[in-house]
């Protein structure tokens, strides 16, 4: 579990490649957990951009697919732990939706591990850091989004 060292992969253009990761955070839990990671000064890779929604259930499959279509190498959806959703049951829907999307991605020849769902509560700054580090490393392993190479 040592600190991730930046591994640079050479893309087809022969340049160094940094992954582009989109993270959807829900306002009440995971966004707060990300804030706490910041307050605690927990360092992590820079390759992700956060988009905030009120609930993880707002994350439309269209958003995920659009992100991949526009060149995202990985998408992470973060919500509250089951039973802790601020809107009571939203995250159960998110769980089903992401499971379905992963199957869909696989059918299209995409590595389903490019899409990840994680439950991160408002007090889990360290978990946010760990998730970002591990996911970034995973995406580096998987490689760039095949769409952008075509």
């Amino acid at each position: 579990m040592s600190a991730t060292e930046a591994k640079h992969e050479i893309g087809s253009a022969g340049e160094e490649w940094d992954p582009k990761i989109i993270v959807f955070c829900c306002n009440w839990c995971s966004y707060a957990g990300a804030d706490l990671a910041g307050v605690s000064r927990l360092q992590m890779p820079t390759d992700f951009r956060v988009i905030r929604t009120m609930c993880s259930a707002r994350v439309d499959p269209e958003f995920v697919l659009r992100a991949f279509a526009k060149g995202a190498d990985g998408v992470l959806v973060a919500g509250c732990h089951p039973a802790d959703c601020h809107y009571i049951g939203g995250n159960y829907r998110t769980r089903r939706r992401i499971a379905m999307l992963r199957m869909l991605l696989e059918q299209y020849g995409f590595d389903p591990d490019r899409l990840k769902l994680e439950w991160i509560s408002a007090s889990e700054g360290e978990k946010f850091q760990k998730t970002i580090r591990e996911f970034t490393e995973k995406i580096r392993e998987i490689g760039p989004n095949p769409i952008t190479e075509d």
Partner: protein
Amino acid sequence: MMSKVGAVMVIGGGISGVQTSLDLADSGFKVYLVEKRASIGGTMAQLDKTFPTNDCSMCIMAPKLVAAGRHHNIELITNADVEEINGVPGDFRVTLKRRTLRVDENKCTGCGVCAEKCPVETVDEYNQGMKKRKAIFVMYPQAVPLVFSIDKEACIGCGVCYEECRAKAVVYEKPDEALEISVGAVILSPGFDEFDARLKKEYGYGHYKNVVTSIEFERMLSATGPYFGAVLRPSDGEIPKKVAFIQCVGSRDEQVGNTYCSSVCCMYAIKEAIIAGEHTAGLKPTIFFMDVRAVGKEFENYRERAEKEYGVIIRRGTRVASVEEDTATKNLLVRYSENGGIATEEFDMVVLSVGMRPSEDAEKLSRRLDFRLNKHGFCETDVFSPLCTSRPGIFVSGSFASPKDIPTTVAEASGAAAKAAALIADVRNTQVTVKEYPAEIDVTGQEPRVGVFVCHCGINIGGVVKVPSVVEYAKTLPGVVYAEENLYTCSSDTQEKIKAMIKEHNLNRVVVASCTPRTHEPLFQNTIREAGLNTYLFEMANIRDQCSWIHMHEPEKASKKARDLVRMAVAKARLLEPLKKSSIPVNHSTIVIGGGLAGMTAALEVSAQGFPVHIIEKTGQLGGSLARLYHKEGTREPREYMNELIAKVRDAKNITVHLDSEVKDVTGFVGNFKVKTSGDEIESGVIIVATGATDYKPSEHSYGKDKRVITQLELEQKLEDKSLRAKKIAMIQCVGSRNEQVPYCSRICCVTAMKNAIAVKRQNHATEVYVFHKDIRTYGFREELYKEACELGVKFIRFPEEDMPRVGGNGDQLEVIAHDTVLGEDVLVKPDILVLSVGIRPNEGNEELAKMLKVPLSKDKYFLEAHMKLRPVDFATEGIFLAGSAHWPKFIDEVIAQASGAATRAMTIISKDELETEGIIAAVNEDICDGCGICEPTCEYKAIQVVKVSENPERLKVAVNEGLCKGCGACVAACPSGAMEQKGFKSSQVIAMIDSALEGGDS
């Protein structure tokens, strides 16, 4: 003629004080929330998780803290003590002393640079001494208010904090302040202190490193604590293999002078054991209980899960004599008695479940405010007025009155608010301020003109991110007509600057790139509104908490990320639209379903505040279960109190009683309910469910067949009319509770048994009384009853969990046989009368009523509240509230407190003429919507309904109830046709951010 003041002072900013303050502030009263520490939050802010839901404590508490900090009707006065009070109920003058923070709270932005540089490290009390903090500090990072303060004792006055503070907020010579405040009522909720474990010398706390208190353990379990959530032995940092919890440390203990039960330690020990097991693979802690007092809603279920799912080892009927340390390993030898013998067991770590004792300020407060404490040193209250102190106009809630758990505290907090509000109901809305804003500028049809403000936050952002480059980049973005950098965008002078720039450059969208919207969005929204812009024309980019702070050593990449985040925020800002919050009218009536103790109490509290109430009672008379209780509680008899209530209800001009009425149909929503009964149709703004519960009619032990087998209520009747003839009485506890079919504990039976046993002995001391029990659950001050029963010679037989007593005997003589776990052998008693302590059951009508109201039931078929810890009297469905045994079995004082609480919660709605809805709600495009209805079940708040299109009844569409929609967006993502949208988070807006994030581009 005295004038009343429409304000209330709440003393104590823990969960109780915060709840009371929010309730009062939401009902039109000004609140002064006085807290002795530098931030609010109390003990609950130190907890990791809460039982029985295992919610993260700070996660559920923080929204309430932030709301209290921001509420324009709540004034926080921190670091303050109460000195004196003068006046009469309705018109008090309270003198406070505010100890100086030595920091100007109007300038401090909470950036934290001062603490980083401070050279002095001292003991961190929040982390129970297991960590260090600086001499200039904030209690914990999410503290409200987020203002640093100087601990003068530790501070050496080196001056570094002053030098480093860019906002110039440090003022060493800032003096203490004396404040005099006029209020109409005072509510005390200063909480409790924990028992000092060093007083139990035999447990070695303070000498043996690996003996810790439960609150220290709580900090260990916290992800924000000293060990980052790991369970470690303080002696050597190793993970313990075996952990023991010792219960009743400082409670139920004459030796240390605390004879009461602290009510919560059984449950919190189980919780800590479960969480410890979650954090440490393979750890199965052992808990040494005397009795396991799991009396609350779903507590028994929690205890069972702890044993079955988590492998927590629960030993009941034990007493720990001593703890000794092995000096080599620092392991601990626990010596205890169990089953009549003495045993020892070695553990790596021991946690002492310390009890609650009265707040250290109790005596001082009671002197200064002139109210009485009871013999235990807690605030004196009466069973029938649990929220009143001995001084009129001063009320009390929470653990200051008696040890209790969080849900009970929160219900009480709302209850105390009702008491205060009733006192000053006629001056409601006289002290609250309504903010005046200029007319809103109409931006429809305008091209977006975005202004971007990029913050340095002292050096927090500027020290990593190249802020000027972000400003320059922002200027190149489409739609941006103005961009500037600020040292602190949140400072008051910058607010003026922002408003000036909005006017000068005709900005119609504003983006602030700084810290997190979770704390600062409302501030900036307020600023742009003051400049005439709709509050929703605002977006934030988080370039601190989620950029500069987490990429501190990569300034180039962090700067690029900041520019990307600004680009994303601008992309969304261009598409933002002004949103209106609509209002729904509110009917000021209340319907209370159920005319028992809870129903009448709630009705009277609402009526006292000047609003009309309808009580719907299905039988022919009011009173409910009170009519069947005979024992004196304190100095009064329940039926006498009941008659008093009934008389008050009848006399109240604004209460209408509907007897012999049952609810047949409920339609409508918050503010506008319509209830059809068997005889009437009643409209109201809110509904309070107070339908009570019933007792179990047993079939065990020949009840019904043998006249000598009776229930406790029947025993009470016999004692009342002196018709009890028995030389020997046996009682069996847990009949119909804590078994396979009904696993929960009915809470009240042990206390009832004790009361009856004592009454039997008092009537005739020679009568022998035997109580067969699993545990004796006389929690709180009711422990005294257990003690008294023992002293009167009542005999107790503790039988095993799974092995109920067997009742037999020939026709002549009853026989009760049970295995006594203390003696280790079977015991035979031949009683003349056998009394069964039967459990409580939810009403059979609950299911149907729940369906009509569209509210859920718990797994035990009681009504299920919105949140078990922090919303114990609300339903998730807005506008409907809950009180009394319909929620869970409880005692008279608990019912009164909770019912008063339900009344207050109802007041937060009916005291208003209109309810403002959320702005960021769902909206359906009726042209596209084909009424497929997929969205309807996704809504937890029942805000969506499939309806017929009025012009074309063949077609269906969906209607969103703006009053109920909470703005989660679940329906939007579910909608297959794109007809459903969420204002403020429209798909087009989110997609614009996605596209912007992935733009190649030279940022």
